């Protein structure tokens, strides 16, 4: 099949939606920039130079529209603007701004394309540009897919540069000094005599000055901020307890609510008796919701208790009720009928494995459902008053929140104001807005009164949209100490099918997430095939940090490790030999050098595993060391090398890289969501463990920098599980093909 035949999944789908919606395609429409959302209602004396810089007499505000969920992207966006604006980060306020088409994500549509990240051919580039155009036309504002830095790097620097030159033009008009003789520094225009005119004093003049035309961007050697570790203002607030997350919002006259709906996801409520709840002191109202009810009370604890006192008669889930039944739907999907993609098919892997002299190596792997479980439970505050709806919440999809409100509640989206709040984690959870729509339902029942709706942790576990469970079947062959054939078939339910439908968009075509992190790996294995099979939709599933690569890194790199051991080769050396991509080879070599790699068994009872995954355009190699101790297996070292493109803030990048590895390790070791009776069995953190302090090994990270633009929130997650499983094999001879690993070994 030719490349053209398999272009465009989400892009095509979103394009279809655009045509259906009457959006005219054309160069003119794509080139025209969306309106500046800061201009309507801007007070006299204030200036909004581009959608990203707002200045008034009181201060300079930088608009950082990608949602801050802990990844430090508010800070990074501010750095990009401030770099060209010549202002210190301690001189600005950072604000997420309103939802607006001007904040479209030009990269996220390309994320689902069937082009390997390292493919820079004409077709791949053309498809990515088409994705940007469609996203711009529709104003798709999403935070996700590790896209924020690549999407925003040029746009935000350009906004800073335009603002700077506009301020200089305004200063020139005020002072009569030619622009060419003006400089900028420290948030001020500098006159030839050294006097400084603060930007704040120029706000009114700037508002009356036409924005500067395109301004050349500074070369990297002129940067003062980008590439340096600068303290994050939000970290200070978070350490003092003064950061106001969505859950902390307080408004005058606010009341407090919680929701309780059928834990059998998508199942109906056949009846309920709320009499006891309504009789409790402090309870204001019980409001029916789809699948259950919300309780409104004068405090959250009363709402929680009252919700627990409602007797519900809940119906069955619309999918197999048991974990065994769910596994069966996935295991039964390895059929031609359910084949979703075969984007990698080099040589003849099936024949090579069958014909292998030493016999084919075969194995089956499993990865469980996983919860996002950010530590801040889902919450949203809503106020319905005078035909306007105000929503305060942490969300990665603010414009979809607006359109979903219109779809679900019939309130025109232009009457919905979304106030973005800092989030206590997300990991993909806030790409869904179910909790927001519940808050809207409650607010509509309480016109004129702000209502904060907060979930219990139990509701949060019951109503996650988990990372899908997945099964992989591997077959391969080795000869003369080398891996010669690798065939991997992966079956999983489709995240895109489940999630895009909830965004109100149509979904069809192959789902790259089923095979991401497997089909697109830069190995020159002579016979190499990766096939995706789409399991029937069951539990509603969603994007979980690193999405499909989160399980495929485990599958691909564990099975490759099996083949390498079968060949009698060194796990690191054979990967380097097979690697067909220079940056990927560099990270493998770098990780080996950092760890002082001397084979998988450096000492008795000590095992080292290596794994490599290229995801989100970032090649990452990880080496994990475990020691087999009397108390169990103990992680004793982790070495990570990644080629990450531009590093915006080294301390922030290191935090993301380390956090991603530990996220991958902790879930691989301990975590799973299983379903019985149609509901998740894990109800709180006692049954869903991530990593604890006592288990955390020393982690060394080396970030190899280039002038490419990549995101770092996700790419270090996928190799972690396999590196650990491979280390356990090296230490103990036990090959674990199922997560969580704690089902088979004990950790100390």
């Amino acid at each position, binding site marked *: 099949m030719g490349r053209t035949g398999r272009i465009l999944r989400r892009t095509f789908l979103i394009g279809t939606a655009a045509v259906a919606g009457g959006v005219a395609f054309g160069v003119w429409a794509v080139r025209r920039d969306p309106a500046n959302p800061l201009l309507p209602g801007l007070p006299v004396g204030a200036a909004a130079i581009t959608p990203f810089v707002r200045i008034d007499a009181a201060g300079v505000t930088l608009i950082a529209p990608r949602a801050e969920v802990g990844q430090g992207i508010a800070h990074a966006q501010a750095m990009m603007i401030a770099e060209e604006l010549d202002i210190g980060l301690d001189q600005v306020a950072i604000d997420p701004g309103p939802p607006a088409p001007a904040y479209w994500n030009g990269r996220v549509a390309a994320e689902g394309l069937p082009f390997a990240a390292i493919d820079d051919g004409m077709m791949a580039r053309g498809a990515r540009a088409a994705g940007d155009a469609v996203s711009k036309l529709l104003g798709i504002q999403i935070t996700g897919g590790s896209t924020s830095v690549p999407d925003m790097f040029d746009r935000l620097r350009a906004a800073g540069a335009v603002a700077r030159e506009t301020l200089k033009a305004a200063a020139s008009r005020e002072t009569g000094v030619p622009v060419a003789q003006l400089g900028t520094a420290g948030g001020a225009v500098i006159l030839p005599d050294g006097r400084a005119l603060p930007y704040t004093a120029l706000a009114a003049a700037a508002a009356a000055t036409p924005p500067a035309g395109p301004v050349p961007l500074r070369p990297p050697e002129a940067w003062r901020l980008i590439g340096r570790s600068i303290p994050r203002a*939000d970290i200070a607030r978070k*350490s003092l307890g003064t950061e106001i997350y969505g859950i902390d919002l307080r408004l005058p006259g606010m009341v407090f609510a919680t929701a309780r709906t059928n834990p059998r996801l998508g199942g109906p409520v056949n009846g309920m008796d709320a009499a006891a709840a309504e009789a409790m002191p402090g309870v204001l109202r019980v409001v029916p919701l789809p699948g259950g009810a919300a309780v409104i009370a004068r405090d959250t604890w009363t709402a929680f208790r009252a919700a627990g006192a409602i007797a519900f008669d809940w119906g069955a889930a619309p999918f197999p009720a048991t974990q065994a039944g769910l596994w069966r739907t996935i295991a039964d999907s390895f059929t031609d009928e359910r084949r979703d993609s075969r984007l990698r098919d080099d040589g003849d892997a099936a024949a090579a494995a069958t014909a292998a002299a030493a016999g084919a190596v075969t194995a089956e792997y499993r990865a469980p459902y996983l919860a996002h479980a950010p530590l801040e439970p889902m919450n949203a505050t809503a106020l319905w008053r005078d035909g306007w709806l105000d929503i305060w919440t942490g969300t990665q999809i603010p414009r979809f929140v607006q359109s979903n409100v219109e779809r679900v509640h019939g309130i025109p989206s232009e009457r919905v104001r979304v106030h973005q709040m800092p989030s*206590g984690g997300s990991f993909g959870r806030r790409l869904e807005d179910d909790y927001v729509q519940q808050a809207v339902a409650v607010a509509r029942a309480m016109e004129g009164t702000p209502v904060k709706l907060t979930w219990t942790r139990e509701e949060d576990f019951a109503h996650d949209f988990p990372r899908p469970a997945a099964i992989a079947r591997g077959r391969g062959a080795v000869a003369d100490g080398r891996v010669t054939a690798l065939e991997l078939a992966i079956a999983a339910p489709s995240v895109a099918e489940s999630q895009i439908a909830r965004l109100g968009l149509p979904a069809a075509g192959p789902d790259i997430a089923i095979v991401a992190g497997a089909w697109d790996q830069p190995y020159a294995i002579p016979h190499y095939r990766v096939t995706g099979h789409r399991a029937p939709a069951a539990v509603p599933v969603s994007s979980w940090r690193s999405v499909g690569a989160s399980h495929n890194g485990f599958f691909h790199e564990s099975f490759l490790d099996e083949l390498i051991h079968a060949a009698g080769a060194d796990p690191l050396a054979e990967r380097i030999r097979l690697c067909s991509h220079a940056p990927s080879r560099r990270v493998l070599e770098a990780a080996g050098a950092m760890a002082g790699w001397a084979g998988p068994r450096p000492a008795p009872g000590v095992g080292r595993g290596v794994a490599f995954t290229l995801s989100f355009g970032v090649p990452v190699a990880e080496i994990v060391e475990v020691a087999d101790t009397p108390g169990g297996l103990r992680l004793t070292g982790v070495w990570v090398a990644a080629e990450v493109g531009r590093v915006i803030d080294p301390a922030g990048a290191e935090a993301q890289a380390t956090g991603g590895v530990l996220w991958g390790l902790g879930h691989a070791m301990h975590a799973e969501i299983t379903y019985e009776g149609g509901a998740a069995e894990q109800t709180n953190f006692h049954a869903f463990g991530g990593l604890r*302090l006592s288990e955390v090994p020393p982690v060394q990270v080396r970030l190899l920098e280039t002038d490419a633009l990549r995101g770092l929130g996700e790419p270090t997650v996928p190799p972690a599980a396999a590196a650990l499983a491979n280390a356990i094999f090296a230490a103990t001879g036990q090959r674990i093909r199922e997560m969580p690993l704690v089902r088979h070994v004990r950790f100390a």
Partner: protein
Amino acid sequence: MAIVLSVNGADRAIEADAEMPLLWALRDILGLTGTKFGCGAGICGACTVHLDGRAARACQVPIGDLAGVAVTTIEGLGTAEAPHPVQRAWIEEQVAQCGYCQPGQIMAAAALLANNPAPSDDDIVAAMDGHICRCATYPRIRSAVRAAAAAMRGA
């Protein structure tokens, strides 16, 4: 009937059920939202406060049990102008990512160091292992506890 709590050095009268957990009295009634709700079951540590100087899970303590007990929250530990040495270390080490668990982590560390100025790694684990950080900032948490301990000993 009003219950009087001593919070951050001031007496506060609260009209609420004596069974209400301290967490919700702090957050919803007193507006002290620095103390976080994470699990409601004493598992995650996000709601850790000090009761007479000892770390405790505010979601597990009914306000009716707090007569004569001095409650300290993250807001009472230090301020932007005068941060507690543990808060200063947390900022200097740039520990927080999402930051939601950090008030609880900081309260646990502050209680540890108040009683043990030179904790071993095992002491740190014993005091902090019950605190969940979903972002896995644990390496910097460890560094910040050590840095705070050193700073407090030197002060």
